[in-house]
């Protein structure tokens, strides 16, 4: 056999290998193609046609012009920014602490983050509903302590939504942050102190920049998950805090307005994919969901 024949044989083997491997991934790809990509393509189409099937931009114009739609988008962004900000405020110090614990304390601390992470979203939302209700534990405790005389309205409103969402989102902030902080070599901090840096200066000059990738990943992840969040705002918002996902749901289930639902869904999807695209530069997307 001459060299050209051998090369041809190798090429043939490689092609067969490639096709074989692709076949293995095929069932998964077919499911995603049929149940995810095809419906998305159809939603895209629906968002550009009216009921007679004529091309129109009316559905997108409605998002911009209708004050109700615009308010929903503004509110969604407002809540998403607020929850993300709170998650950073709470998540950063907690991740910092967790990354420095050792032995059994580290295991306990991490377990207390991971157990809620893996507990059903619906169960956690329900727990908040129970805690925050009129005669719930929090109101009763505050009354018993004499801090308030009348029960506060803590749920079925804006604040209930924010608290519930924060609880769900916090692990998504902590886990990437923790992972990036755990990789920081603390000898660098010791070196900084040896060179005369005070603790605060050393933190901002050495530790913080090294944790920034994790912080960006956690921040973008929490933000993007907030944008499309459905269950928790639906239950804890009590129908008064309408977010984008609820606008989609209502247009489909209450008004059968597929055009309106599709356009909102497409705008939401584009926003979410853009954030994921940015996120991917800080942390490979598959790593983001690694813990869950």
């Amino acid at each position, binding site marked *: 056999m001459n060299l050209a024949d051998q090369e041809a044989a190798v090429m043939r083997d490689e092609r067969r290998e490639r096709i074989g491997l692709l076949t293995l991934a095929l069932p998964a*790809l077919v*499911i995603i193609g049929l149940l995810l990509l095809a419906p998305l393509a159809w939603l895209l189409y629906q968002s550009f046609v009216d009921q007679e099937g004529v091309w129109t931009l009316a559905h997108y114009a409605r998002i911009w012009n209708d004050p109700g739609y615009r308010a929903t988008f503004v509110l969604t962004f407002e809540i998403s920014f607020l929850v993300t900000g709170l998650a950073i405020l709470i998540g950063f110090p907690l991740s910092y602490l967790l990354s420095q614990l050792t032995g059994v304390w580290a295991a306990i601390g991490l377990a207390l983050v991971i157990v809620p992470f893996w507990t059903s979203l619906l169960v956690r939302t329900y727990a908040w509903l129970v805690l925050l209700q009129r005669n719930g534990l929090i109101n009763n405790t505050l009354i018993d302590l004499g801090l308030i005389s009348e029960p506060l309205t803590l749920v079925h409103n804006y604040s209930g939504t924010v608290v519930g969402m924060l609880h769900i989102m916090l692990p998504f902030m902590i886990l990437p942050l923790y992972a990036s902080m755990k990789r920081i070599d603390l000898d660098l901090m010791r070196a900084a102190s040896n060179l005369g840096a005070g603790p605060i200066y050393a933190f901002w000059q050495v530790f913080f920049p090294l944790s920034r990738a994790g912080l960006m990943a956690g921040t973008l992840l929490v933000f993007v998950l907030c944008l499309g969040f459905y269950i928790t705002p639906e239950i804890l918002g009590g129908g008064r805090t309408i977010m984008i996902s609820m606008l989609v749901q209502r247009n489909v289930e209450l008004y059968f307005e597929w055009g309106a639902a599709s356009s909102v869904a497409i705008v939401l999807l584009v926003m979410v994919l853009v954030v994921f695209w940015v996120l991917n530069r800080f942390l490979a997307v598959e790593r983001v969901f690694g813990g869950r």
Partner: protein
Amino acid sequence: MFDDTTGGTLVSHRQRIWLYGVGILALLFLIFPIFIVVPMSFSDSRFLQFPPEAWSLRWYDHFFSSREWMRSLRISLTAAFCTMLVATPLGVAAAYALHNANARYVRHLQVLLIMPLMVPIIIVAIGLFFVYARAQLVGTMFGLVLAHTMMAMPFVLIVSLAGLQGFDMDQEKVARSLGWNRLQSFLRVTLPQIRPSVVAGALFAFITSLDEVVIALFITGGPNSTLTKRMFTALRDEIDPTIAAISSMLIITSLAIVLAAALAGGKRRKRS
């Protein structure tokens, strides 16, 4: 004087007591709502109180003696079990393909395969609702399992990929050069060594299906509602203590599954 140094700087434990305070409060915030539900579910009262004035099992009794709840439980467990059986092999096969394929197009396929986790669930749900309405799959177990398989596959894929990355593929090559075919080599050499990842992936698939709400809201209904759909409907109207009983059981289930997955993963780490 510095009694100890922390975090690589000359800060004593006492000086950063605020950090411990914030950390403990944050951990309490995370865990408290979950653990408070369990004792409340044993309350005798129609109103959920903590601590309950009298203890009873009436809400558990109510759950287990209700035909509707039992039917939903059966549907949810069947769906979760079937999802696990379908999603695990599909996810492992895809992971094997991605791991062994050449680098260029793999990256794109991988993103495609974890797309179900990136697209907001409400959009996935209305898309499925549309497709299923035309394919007459609304309200069927087959449709539910298929949808949950799509949602669970990415987790199996991610966990299996991580497992494969810690495995030396040359071992499989050796097995093949000694005469086994690819499938035999995979089943007898590779699979036993990545088994902890596969087990963890399967458990995650099970719980993904069991906990899934939004898709079930759209594609199941009436007598065929899943447990979570029925819970969702019930707690939009009133705070039924039966939900506390179900929630407690779901918490225990998640806890057991995470623990099992962690133990499987722990074995893997020890070996490598």
